[in-house]
């Protein structure tokens, strides 16, 4: 499992992030998130706010973003919550990065369905490109994390890179995706299997076939 410990509370960390505050753009988004919850229940916005904070940190550092302690304290203050409660949330959910990550956070699913479909090869391919688990690669582009099921088992194996999923991977397809990202291009997201659109059965439907082209009435056939 990934290391969830917050990055150490050093003077440098305080120096760099002590003055963190939402910029106008994120402030607006934060207010929008807050508006979703009734008066007296504003704490419920803690998850969206942590996410926004992480994204702003990402923009400021040209990475996916992470949550330094002073930023967590900022969110706690923003919501008037005890900071330990915010830290509990931040350390619980894997979507929050507790230590710096690269520009692209490559999260490879290693749970059974993906593993059976070859996630070991995907991880090996990542490592071959110089990524190490939990570390930022030298060029600052990549951080590799092995995660549990992402809910894309039908199109296993898969990786999640920042906000997008790339599915039906082989080492070659993964390389193509990563190469494109490295060049600053946006590869096609979702399944990488030619001819497949989403998670429909690969090789065409196996049930309800008549429904593919028209609204077929099966009732008489039961």
């Amino acid at each position, binding site marked *: 499992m990934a290391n969830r410990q917050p990055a150490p509370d050093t003077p440098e960390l305080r120096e760099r992030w002590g003055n963190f505050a939402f910029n106008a753009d994120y402030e607006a988004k934060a207010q929008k998130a807050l508006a979703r919850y009734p008066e007296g229940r504003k704490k419920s916005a803690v998850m969206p706010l942590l996410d926004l904070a992480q994204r702003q940190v990402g923009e400021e550092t040209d990475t996916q973003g992470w949550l330094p302690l002073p930023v967590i304290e900022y969110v706690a203050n923003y919501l008037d919550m005890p900071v330990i409660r915010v*830290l509990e949330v931040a350390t619980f959910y894997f979507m929050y990065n507790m230590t710096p990550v690269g520009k692209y956070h490559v999260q490879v699913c290693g749970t059974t369905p993906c593993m059976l479909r070859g996630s070991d090869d995907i991880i090996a391919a990542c490592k071959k490109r110089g990524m190490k688990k939990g570390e930022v690669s030298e060029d600052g582009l990549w951080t590799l994390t092995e995660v549990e099921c992402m809910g894309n088992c039908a199109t296993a194996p898969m990786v999640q890179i920042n906000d997008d999923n790339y599915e039906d991977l082989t080492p070659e397809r993964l390389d193509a995706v990563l190469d494109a990202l490295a060049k600053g291009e946006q590869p096609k997201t979702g399944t990488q299997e030619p001819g497949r659109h989403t998670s429909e059965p690969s090789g065409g439907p196996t049930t309800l076939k008549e429904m593919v082209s028209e609204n077929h009435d099966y009732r008489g056939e039961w």
Partner: protein
Amino acid sequence: MPKVTVDGQEIDAPEGATVLQACELAGKEIPRFCYHERLSIAGNCRMCLVEVKPGPPKPQASCALPATEGQEIRTDTPMVRAAREGVMEFLLINHPLDCPICDQGGECDLQDQSVAYGRGGSRYHENKRAVTEKYMGPLIKTIMTRCIHCTRCVRFSEEIAGVDEIGALYRGEDMQITTYLEQAAAHEMSANVIDLCPVGALTSRPYAYEARPWELKKTLSIDVSDAVGANIRLDSRGREVMRALPRINDDVNEEWISDKARYQVDGLTRRRLDQVWVRAVGGPNAGKLQRASWEDAFDAIVKAAKQGGDGSIAAVAGDLVDCETMFAAKRLLAELGSDKLEGRQTGLDYDCSSLAGIAFNSTLAGIESADAILIVGSQVRHEAPLINVRLRKAAKRGAKIFLIGPEWDTTFACEFLGEDAGLLHDLPGHVADAFKDAARPAIIVGPGGLAANALHPALVLADEWNLVRDIDGEAWNGFNVIHTAAARMGAVMLGYAQKGGIKDVVDAAPAVLLSLGADAVDYGAFEKSLKVYIGHHGDAGAHAADIILPAASYAEKDGTYVNTEGRVQFAEKAVFAPGDAREDWTILRALADAFGVSVGFDSFAQLQSAMIEAVPALGEEGIAPLGKLPKGKKTPKAKGAIAYPIADFYLTNPIARASETMQRCSAELVHGDEILEAAE
């Protein structure tokens, strides 16, 4: 009232009860770790599984399941037994089983329940997880590998203490309990998590590896560190009090005590007065305290008193003394023709003519149900942490709380109106409105308010707002005073209250001043008097004294105490006083002999009956009859900025000041920031 059957026995469960509570009513023991009567329900340990029909055919967590009509509950089936064994086995998977080196051993829920409900062996052969220790301050020692994640400590700090500082970080098998950045838990009730922790994860740091519970003699006592009179148990070994623990008393302290009540006891063995000292007059050591015999000391006292003439003697009671001591001194003084008795050492002179006018009338439990509360000059967290817990409950139930006095860090929603006591005469409209609309209004006057002359103005308001009323046949008196001295109410009942306060005693210029453990008196004002200190610690009072007679602390004598509600409670003697120190009453009895007067008692029992004869209320445990709430006088008016008397919560009395633990708390928790700043 839902009717349920528990193991075939039909019972009526109270409305809103859980299955676990229903089982308890039926006399069945349900093992549990996370469930606690005074905390919210977490339902995360799964130890309380029972079988319930109707419902899914699986064991159910009884602590989180409401009892409903017609439920058939079984606690004795093979399924339940297997479920308990299974949960126990899982809990122990990551538990180090280090009972021989664990301080919780002998009083550990995990130990007891695994003996009673476990399967006697584990099938787990993999590596166990280990968790690093977490720093939680000078009082709480942590061995987090033992934690079973019941979250009682987290819920306590959030719900009861109102200071969210403990949390559960990470998840799954990585879950760890800690404070933010391992800062010290810094509130007045923090050590209660030690009692709450069902395993040895949170244990007492000062008491670490000191004793095993079965070696300790347990004595029922009353805490004297504040005027709440928390019920405590003193655990002693030989001549030493090893620790103080709360006893359950829903009317007083529920099941909590403040950190000071718990940890000042190590001060009982330090800086003790254990022999007689007399200040030398003349000679090479003039002005220095010299060891002396009891006879010499008594002779000197008698000589000085005789020189001063009839009745030229006075007594000032300290904050920690019991009623018997005060009564014995009162008797002695009466025989010598004096009634100069005072207990308010620092010069307060509020009106003590009515007990109800200076008591916590709503009762401690009652204040929880108040719906509008005005606090005048009280830093409740420092002056009575246990009342603060009650106020937090009231606020959670929706009470509007207003405060007059400098702002402090409250643990409940409230509004500070300002610092000036004069505000009482000129309250903002919304406050008055809140009180007019309130069903159970209450006023609390604290020591800061008493000093600013707020007692009578508050009584006037009490009259105006009808604080004394009848609510559906139940009497409600919302007028409250918080005292800080455990001796205060008893002292007033025994007449230790001059009209003009201690100034009257100063003006009388007594030849002999008996100081019954009074350490806060300005002794400079008694330059001409022979100051006789009868007390247990070498503190301010002993330094100023001309004669020191070593006496017993609250742990070393039987005694009666009256708390700020007017509740009479009895404490028992746990250990013997050190060295030559004697129980206070015996000293006063011997002094009477030296004076050649008779005080009418030769034993503690006789003293007590004489006291009860004089003040019958002191003979009955429970709230003394306080009388009717007096009408307030319109003048003089309250005025001036309010100041709170307690600067350092941990060092308010001579025992606490002698305690290493309290000193450490003070250094780290009160002055920690200053130390850090100085280091920078």
